[in-house]
């Protein structure tokens, strides 16, 4: 049996929606996420795996879980 495919669907959708909502390519969305991470990392001790940028239709959410380690 192959691995459940739902994670792939959610991951693809996440990238697609981010790009749709920003009206840019998935590649640009990735770059934005990376730039935001680097900017925040200048001020806050944070690791890439604890950083998440989420763009909804009306908001940009930046989530980090820095205090957990």
């Amino acid at each position, binding site marked *: 049996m192959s691995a*459940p495919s*739902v994670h792939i669907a959610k991951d693809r*959708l*996440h990238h697609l*929606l981010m790009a749709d909502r920003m009206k840019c390519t998935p590649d640009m969305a990735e770059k934005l996420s990376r730039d935001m991470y680097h900017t925040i990392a200048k001020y806050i001790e944070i690791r890439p795996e604890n950083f998440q940028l989420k763009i909804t*239709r009306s908001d940009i959410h930046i989530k980090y879980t820095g205090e957990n380690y």
Partner: protein
Amino acid sequence: MGEVIVITSGKGGVGKTTTTANIGIGLAQAGKKVIVIDTDLGLRNLDVVMGLENKIVYNLVDVIEGNCRLRQALIRDKRFAELYLLPSAQTRDKSAVSPGQMQKLISELETEFDYILLDCPAGIEQGFENAVAGAERAIIVTTPEVSAIRDADRIIGLLETKGIKKNSLIINRLRIEMVQKGDMMTVEDVTEILAIPLLGVIPDDEQVVIATNQGEPIVGTDSLSGHAYDHICRRILGEEIPIPDFSHSDSFFSRVRRLFGKN
């Protein structure tokens, strides 16, 4: 004054027309005076799903162009005297109707009907603009697939831009066994992504195909999808009915399915 609801999705083939027909019939079953309007110019479908295709004389474009009076184009449903259909035109070009004309038409109907349901065409072009022009609330239909959810997100964004903020979601054709195996997005996955209130979940059910073949409603029948549509109609009417949990193997529906030997 009636409530004007557009049923839309962005992507085609996710069940807008079937949903429009069954919500219309369900609300009529509840004793409401309902009109369903097919706004898909050139690709008429709602009449066929409702089994009323042989009764069409005039259509939406005839009304707009003044070839007939509004009343002459309305088709009364064969099951419910308080349910009417305004069919679309099969052969006219998509620019035959404007959003302003739709608004005017709807304002005439609002005084007479409790619910005005607009079946929106796929896409985000003129047909979409026409369908949403007079609507105060939208039901977005999606299936748990990447492409359908992506389009639903676009549509919700467009509706919000147009000031239609009372939006709710129907997840159609959920395959419970696939969700349990991890091969289909869960109800929670979809609602989390789209972030609008959930109006209902319709399990994938071959009874829908059978009913549609016959031009008969599924709502009101003793089937998984029939009950789901019934719940949706009652939620529209203001009842608070919880959405069943589809993610666990001992859910109500899987028990029902086992009972009927379908697992």
